[in-house]
């Protein structure tokens, strides 16, 4: 192939006044951006930089800065620099553009158009420092005529760690989140890559996933779990499957997934035993039987246009927990066109599904869990007020563990030890610190949520669930307000 005409995406700036040639950047960059030769000459290969910030963060003299490559194209609102670069990349590679994490586009973010209520004189706010504030929530089928028999998940905080498979993320991510979930009284999700033998003790705190690839699914896997989640779709790439490149399928990954090492792990787009809703009902029933009706069965779907009908069908097919993943949801690798153009915001999907299930009188048969781009405790509060029972977070958890959102997860060269299976990179995430950071994050969110709830005059999370009067929309059209089922500000 001829000379690549694409210029680098980022520029690494080194302050020579500050650089002490200590070589930390050289040793830490898995992309070989930094080089220190024997003459003490430091040189940088900008084109390899992905802006993960590892070098800048670890540089002891703050000598490094990374900026967007300042080479401008002639201004053009239609042919943006990004769209031009994408064409260069495809013209060079002839391949599908891949990207990691969720949809980064500027579509309207409904969380940012919702405001939360607070009590004033007509009723008192509650001080969470002095009064009890209950965050406990139960997930499962709460149909009042059958609850006695239906298994429930008890969450001390209405937050769980969302599915990220071992292989797409490192074992230390799983360890961090498993320990954090246990300490926080909530659950983590194995994702579709099976359970690593080191984590067998944490199985009881795990929601184990059964996805189209059926990786690592066996009776002990199902037994050693808190709940089983059938993954139908993923917010970042609705309608398509997954592909873990062979180079990430290390011995450990191969063991957990029960596939040969160094071979590609392909999750088909559909489950090849689910070609319609009744097939899903059968799989749900099968898993319930396999787990002796002791565990709730969750079904995870991506938020797409006809999500209400899908949700209704899934609930009627027997799902105890319905998970809706919005288009901001992260992923290790997704075709960029799919990620950026398919799916809908989870806020809308949630509002619609909650209302639809209530209208059908089947809301109590399932718990609604949403995921996809939850960034902070206010997002959680808003989701619950819109009708969610609990919220899954993944990207936020990874950021807590050190992720700098460079969106290059699919390369397997994660400098933060997160989206990699290379042992030398994996060890960069110390699970002791990782779990501590994840616990800190959720503890902080919990405090904030308690404050917000106290402000609303509410001291139990179930009184917030579906309490849309606690929300007002700002900068939304009447139609959007109607779809979200909330009033406008000042109403």
């Amino acid at each position, binding site marked *: 192939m001829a000379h690549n005409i694409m210029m680098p995406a980022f520029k690494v700036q080194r302050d020579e006044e500050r650089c002490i040639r200590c070589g930390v950047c050289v040793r830490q960059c898995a992309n070989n951006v930094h080089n220190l030769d024997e003459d003490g000459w430091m040189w940088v290969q900008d084109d390899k930089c992905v802006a993960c910030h590892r070098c800048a963060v670890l540089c002891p003299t703050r000598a490094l800065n990374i900026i967007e490559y300042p080479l401008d194209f002639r201004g053009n609102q239609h042919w943006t620099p990004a769209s031009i670069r994408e064409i260069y990349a495809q013209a060079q590679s002839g391949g599908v553009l891949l990207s990691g994490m969720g949809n980064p586009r500027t579509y309207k973010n409904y969380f940012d158009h919702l405001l939360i209520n607070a009590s004033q004189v007509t009723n008192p706010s509650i001080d969470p420092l002095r009064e009890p504030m209950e965050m406990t929530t139960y997930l499962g089928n709460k149909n009042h005529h059958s*609850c006695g028999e239906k298994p429930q998940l008890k969450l001390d905080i209405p937050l769980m760690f969302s599915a990220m498979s071992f292989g797409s993320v490192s074992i230390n991510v799983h360890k961090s989140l498993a320990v954090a979930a246990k300490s926080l009284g909530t659950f983590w999700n194995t994702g579709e890559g099976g359970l690593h033998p080191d984590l067998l003790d944490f199985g009881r705190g795990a929601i184990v996933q059964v996805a189209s690839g059926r990786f690592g699914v066996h009776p002990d896997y199902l037994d050693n779990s808190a709940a089983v989640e059938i993954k139908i779709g993923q917010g970042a790439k609705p309608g398509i499957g997954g592909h873990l490149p062979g180079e990430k399928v290390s011995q450990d990954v191969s063991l957990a997934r029960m596939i040969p090492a160094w071979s590609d792990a392909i999750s088909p787009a559909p489950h090849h035993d689910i070609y319609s809703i009744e097939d899903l009902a059968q799989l749900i029933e099968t898993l319930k039987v396999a787990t002796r009706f002791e565990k709730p069965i969750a079904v995870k779907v991506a938020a797409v246009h006809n999500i209400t009908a899908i949700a209704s069908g899934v609930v009627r097919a027997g799902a105890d927990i319905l998970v809706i993943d919005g288009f901001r949801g992260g992923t290790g690798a997704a075709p960029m066109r799919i990620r950026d153009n398919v799916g809908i915001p989870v806020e809308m999907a949630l509002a619609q599904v909650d209302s639809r299930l209530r209208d059908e009188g089947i809301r109590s048969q399932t718990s609604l869990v949403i995921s996809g781009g939850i960034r902070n405790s206010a997002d959680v509060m808003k989701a619950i007020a819109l009708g969610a029972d609990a919220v899954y977070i993944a990207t936020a958890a990874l950021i807590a563990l050190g992720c700098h959102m460079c969106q290059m997860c699919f390369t397997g060269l994660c400098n933060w030890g997160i989206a990699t299976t290379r042992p030398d990179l994996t060890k960069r995430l110390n699970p002791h610190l990782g779990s501590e950071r994840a616990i800190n994050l959720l503890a902080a969110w919990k405090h904030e949520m308690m404050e917000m709830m106290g402000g609303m005059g*509410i001291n139990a999370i179930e*009184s917030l*669930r*579906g309490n849309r009067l606690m929300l007002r929309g700002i900068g939304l059209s009447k139609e959007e307000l109607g779809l979200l089922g909330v009033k406008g500000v000042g109403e």
Partner: protein
Amino acid sequence: MLLNEGQVRIPSGCAIAGIINRQGQGFGGGKIIDCIANMHQRSNGLGGGFAAYGIYPGFAEYYALHIYFDCKESRNDCERYLTKNFNIRLQEPVPVRKQARVNNAPIIWRYFAQPKEECLAYTQLDEHEFTARAVMHINAAIPGAFVASSGHNMGAFKGVGYPEDIGEFFRLEDYQAYLWTAHGRFPTNTPGWWGGAHPFTLLEWSVVHNGEISSYDANQRFLQMHEYRCTLQTDTEVITYSFDLLMRKERFNLAETISVIAAPFWSDINDERIKRLRRIYGGLLLNGPFSIIVATGNGLIAVNDRIKLRPLVAARKGEFLYVASEESAIRVVEAHPDEIWSPGGGEPVIGLLADRENLLDLAPHNDSIARPA
């Protein structure tokens, strides 16, 4: 322009009071008026009302419908609907007296009625459910008509004004009831509407309530799934429906019902059954500050929110049980009670007629919820 109850959610502060003679001996309305009048400052003149039980012994087997009409047309529409569905034994205006401080009163009638057999057969509903649906239909679908009460041998008397003036307006001293509840209202964004005053009732239920429920929307959306339409958008309505759902429809006993609406903290619940109840009916937990008095023909129950953010005092003297927002309101009618106390958060004060065991004497407990062996 200000919107009425039913068009907008209206939070309000209030005074509440209730008196029951547990032997079922009737007594005039003067006592309860004195009681509520003493808490004048807890209302702002935008609503007052009473519920009285045992006032229509001669029509005890009939649903006593107190209905407010905006105009004659509304009454005609409503009566057409009633005669189509009910056999009406007697219909008459509710007697009132002119009162300088009570204005804009609607047309107020009462009907002693029973659902028609053929209608019950056609709809396959029991008469309570049939009547309850009829009440909701009138309130929702017949413009200008509002059912103030609909239970047997009881009635609600409410309107816009201070409660003592409303009591005088309705000539309550002429009624003999063994159980009275009263309400003085301090709403914050209504012009005052007669239908929106309290007590709120459904069939035999009447509820007076003080406070603002922060969980309102969660509660009302939960009730929606059980086919309750909260047309008035008031907390009291939600409370009433919650009791109706739990006790009439789901047939839980008082203790179980209280454990839902003023649920103990998770950490304090040892009973697996109560845990399960809270899991299922978490949506009915009344969160935020309130004190309420719920009454039926069988008696009353007064309860606070679980962290007691609103006042509630109870007292006993012989066969009389008093509950009120303030101790002074009790002392004014009973200076030397045998016992007077302030119940804790979520700890109910129960005053039932001597021969009754439940607020509603209905069929056995709901067994759809498994009980521990």
